[in-house]
């Protein structure tokens, strides 16, 4: 006990002292003015992102999204995010494959889940959690957030339901593993279709367009509608966020259900191997 207090004191002294030294010599530690470009007259990358993310005057370069991070994630560096999404789903498929062989028997009999108080409160809060998740996901082009964060928030509702009501509750209300796989596939297909939509429109209309195009560029004149009824949807960003929200919610729910269900059939799984 005394020893651990001594260790804590030494660690805290080291941290506070080194920070004092660093703050005296702060030029070398604190990130500086990145917007002073080394080459005059050339826009630096962050300045370019910040200046073009929502700028109607530069109509050939803008994304029409006030949120610069979402604009980078789904437009400037959209291919990165596409491959990141595929890595996530490959990991999920690997998880489903590793959880194979276990027979998924639902628990039966007796009182399932936690006490009546927790169940009542959860009945009230579960729709709210899903609503907040959808709001984060669908406002991703306006405020900090996006499809992935919203999906992760909404999947928490399903995890709470598994803990509080047991998995039988989810299956009775129509949330089964196969349906979630279908929902996840709908989300992934939507992402793929949104990515190639303008490319095929360009092929049909005989104009230049490329895969993952959002707004018109000087060499490719087609662009998604960025306003619907004077409400900003920022072209493809809204659709990407919607489909990513569906896919992430369903994917996480599959993972939680597999981890929760496996206990029932774990002995069977050992005999299979």
């Amino acid at each position, binding site marked *: 006990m005394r020893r651990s207090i001594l260790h804590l004191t030494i*660690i805290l002294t080291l*941290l506070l002292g*080194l*920070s*004092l*030294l*660093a*703050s005296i010599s*702060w030029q070398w*530690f*604190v*990130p*500086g*003015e*990145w*917007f002073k470009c080394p080459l005059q007259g050339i826009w630096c*990358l*962050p*300045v370019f*992102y*910040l*200046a073009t*993310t*929502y*700028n*109607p*005057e530069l109509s050939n370069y803008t994304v029409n999204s*006030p*949120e*610069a*991070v979402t*604009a*980078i*994630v789904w437009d400037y*560096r959209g291919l*990165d*995010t596409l491959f*990141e*999404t595929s*890595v*996530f789903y*490959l*990991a*999920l498929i*690997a*998880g489903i494959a*590793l*959880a194979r062989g276990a027979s998924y028997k639902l628990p039966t009999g007796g009182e399932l889940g936690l006490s009546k108080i927790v169940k009542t409160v959860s009945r009230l809060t579960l729709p709210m959690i899903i609503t907040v998740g959808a709001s984060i996901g669908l406002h991703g082009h306006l*405020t*900090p957030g*996006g499809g*992935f964060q919203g999906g*992760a928030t909404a999947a928490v509702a399903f995890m709470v339901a598994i803990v509080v009501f047991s998995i039988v509750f989810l299956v009775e209300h129509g949330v089964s593993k196969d349906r979630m796989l279908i929902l996840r596939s709908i989300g992934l297909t939507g992402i793929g279709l949104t990515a190639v939509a303008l490319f095929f429109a360009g092929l049909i209309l005989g104009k230049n367009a490329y895969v993952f195009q959002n707004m018109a560029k000087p060499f490719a004149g087609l662009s998604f509608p960025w306003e619907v009824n004077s409400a900003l949807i920022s072209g493809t960003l809204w659709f990407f966020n919607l489909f990513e929200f569906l896919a992430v919610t369903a994917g996480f729910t599959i*993972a939680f259900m597999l*981890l929760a269900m*496996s206990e029932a059939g*774990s002995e069977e*799984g*050992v005999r299979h*191997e």
Partner: protein
Amino acid sequence: MSEFIVNYLFSLTLFSLIFNFVLSIYGLFFKPHYIKKVIALTIFSDTINVFAIYVGYRRWINGINPRPPVLIKPPTPGAISEFINSAVDPLPQALVLTAVVIGLAVTLFLIFLGYQLYKHYHTLDMREIRRLRG
């Protein structure tokens, strides 16, 4: 004086991050339990992510404090130039968003792998699993 306090708090954050980094490396290598290794790996990746966001931060100059890269005013030229002069770099944040998703995917895979390990060996102690090999 206020600038000094800001710098001091900033350096404190930086050194705490480095300390966190060392602790997570220690946990990753020397803790024998599989779940503890996974937790240390999560702390490690989160520390790296905070480092990446730190690179995109900008200094307080003449009372202009850094803002998140979200334009909250109508896009007039004046509002946009004010936005450029006060917003932090959005690129590291976007890269961190990608890294967080990849980290989650890896963690999910490792947890399923741990489940499988437990089914085979009936333990998650890495020393035991090494001894049981073959």
